[in-house]
């Protein structure tokens, strides 16, 4: 996945502050944290000399910006997913929110599960409940280590 | 032509199982079935790279499939893997010993590079149909 340095290299590196951040580096961090979008950097969009950089940056951040990437930075590679539901059952939020369903190995029963399997692959909803979300986030990896095909990653 | 001797173990793959449900005759099923996973060293011996075709031969038969670099993290010279399918079954001996179960998971074979195309399912069917 993209790291801060890679993103920074593709920014104008002028620290012009038009984005509202003091440095391009800070903006790079904001991009990866999904607090800002590429369009928040006016020079990059407007100045044709950055055209190549812009193109590369879009490519680099495409997985992050795609619909698959939720606000926690979770990326689900549905093409690799087995639909086994291991993550659904192992997710501590699911266990707490859905004690009669996913906690016991079934599909969700409470409507409050955040991971579920639809059409044979995993889907993430109510992402604000994920333990990686919000100010007190913790680096939970229950869904990653239980996946037989490494179909889930966090950026 | 350089050859390498291997023992082939067949296995099941969920994507291949999914493709099988959809149809034995689908291209998808062939792409996920007509494969042999080889050890890196064995690949070198027969001067083959990931994605090229190889000919696999046993006393029981012969088949042309795509060679893939095995993703095992330990080296395993002499050991190869194939998804269980009509392709791997071309190679299994009809000798079923006392158990009457064919040797699906320990197939002694020789692998060599080839410029032939991967066998299609129709070709396998023709071979099965042909008089012997």
């Amino acid at each position, binding site marked *: 996945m993209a790291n801060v340095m890679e993103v920074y290299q593709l920014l104008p590196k002028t620290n012009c502050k038009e984005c509202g951040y003091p440095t391009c580096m800070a903006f790079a961090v904001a991009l990866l944290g999904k607090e800002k979008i590429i369009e928040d950097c006016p020079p990059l969009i407007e100045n044709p000399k950055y055209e190549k950089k812009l193109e590369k940056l879009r490519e680099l951040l495409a997985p992050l910006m795609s619909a698959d990437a939720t606000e926690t930075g979770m990326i689900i590679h549905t093409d690799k997913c087995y639909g086994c539901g291991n993550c659904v059952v*192992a997710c501590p939020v699911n266990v707490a929110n859905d004690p009669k369903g996913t906690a016991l190995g079934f599909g969700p029963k409470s409507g409050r599960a955040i991971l579920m399997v639809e059409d*044979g692959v995993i889907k993430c909803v109510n992402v604000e409940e994920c333990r990686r979300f919000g100010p007190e986030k913790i680096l939970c990896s229950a869904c990653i280590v239980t996946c037989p095909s490494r179909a889930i990653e966090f950026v | 032509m350089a050859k390498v001797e291997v023992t082939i173990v067949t*296995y099941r793959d969920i994507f291949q199982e999914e493709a099988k449900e959809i149809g034995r005759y689908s291209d998808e099923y062939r792409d996920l079935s007509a494969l042999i996973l080889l050890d890196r060293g064995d690949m070198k011996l027969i001067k083959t790279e990931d994605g090229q075709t190889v000919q696999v031969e046993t006393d029981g038969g012969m088949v042309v499939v795509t060679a893939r670099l095995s993703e095992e*993290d330990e080296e395993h010279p002499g050991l190869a893997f194939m998804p269980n*399918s*009509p392709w791997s079954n071309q190679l299994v001996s009809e000798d079923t*010993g006392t158990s009457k*179960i064919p040797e699906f998971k320990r197939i002694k074979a020789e692998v060599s590079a080839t410029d032939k195309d991967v066998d299609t399912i129709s070709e*396998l*069917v023709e071979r099965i149909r042909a008089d012997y």
Partner: protein
Amino acid sequence: MAVCTGCSLLCDDIELEFEDGKISLTKNLCRKGEGRYRSLREDRLVPAVDGAKVGFDEAISRAAELLGDAENPLLFGWSNSSLEAQRIGIDLAKKLGATIDDTSSFCQGYLMEKVLRGEYPTCTLDEVRNFADVLIYWGSDPSSSQPRHMSRFSYFPRGEKRQRGYDEDRTAIAIDVRKSPTVVIAADGFFRIPPGGDAEFIEALLAALGGKIPKVKDKKMKKKILKLGSTLRKAEFGVVFPGLGLIYSLKDEIDKLTPLITRLNEVSSYKLIPMVGHYNMRGFNQTLLEETGHINRVSFKDGVEHGTQFAVTEAVNDCDALMVIGSDLISALPAAISKKLARIPTVAIDPHRNLTTDMARVTIPSAISGLEAGGSALRMDGVKVEFEPVIKSGYRSDVEILSRIMEAV
């Protein structure tokens, strides 16, 4: 809620949404089950005789003719049919004086027999979920073959005595010749053995359980096995899940496993559940056992006879008509044996076109169980699961097809 017949877990929590009478969304189906649902629209078989399309009735009467005229018919398949269809199938075999065999014959048969005869202790998957703390996946790869096994029952779910989650409550060990997708997630140890190395591993484990040094060359492995011995001794409720890897390695020498199962039950309590693939293989084995005292490979030519000569791989040599139901036998067997099969006049009953139906004289399309036809089946652990059809279709069930053939012969 629907039941999936994609594998022998028979998941019964499948939710469906419909649009214009078609399934528009599935919930809780794994990729393999999803494949089965999608197959509703793919490559369906048509009734045909010698390659020419005919009506259903015509196909039935030609099938009955072909089987009725034969001296030595062989009826094969069954693991993808309901219990009700299997019963009729056995009656049909009796009526025809036929040989009957199922996929267990070159699959889980030798082990399943031990379990069904009560020689190996077994339990239900619900008990596994509630109580099991040590899990041994031996030559099995549920992630690929029974994808929801670990999430619904064996490893990840909470249960009565397993409330704290898999990482604290359960120990999972994988024994395999390759790093399968199951090996990747079984957190507590991967024992890589060479192909055919299972008997030796059993010996080593027996030594370790007896506090002796296992006879293994590799020093690291020796240590690992010794440690495994003590892990296994500490289990409260252990379960072994043997797959085809173990069974193909031992075959008719499955008895080599017996001392280990015995020993494990001396040091603690251990059960065994064979990792069946097809959704109702166990059902057929159980039903035939009740009827004849044998789980497969039976001939009704002269009363009830059983033996390896009635295994499909042998029976093919002297049968003069073949009926295959719910199995792509030609794809599944070595080509050299399939060549022989291809020359036998065959009736093939299946929802889909496949290699076997393509070589058959008579083809009869059938409904997909659980989707287009109801019935019941035995899950891999022997629990009976009933299912209803979830959509309307013109395809007839195996029960109807077999009853019609039965009437016609």
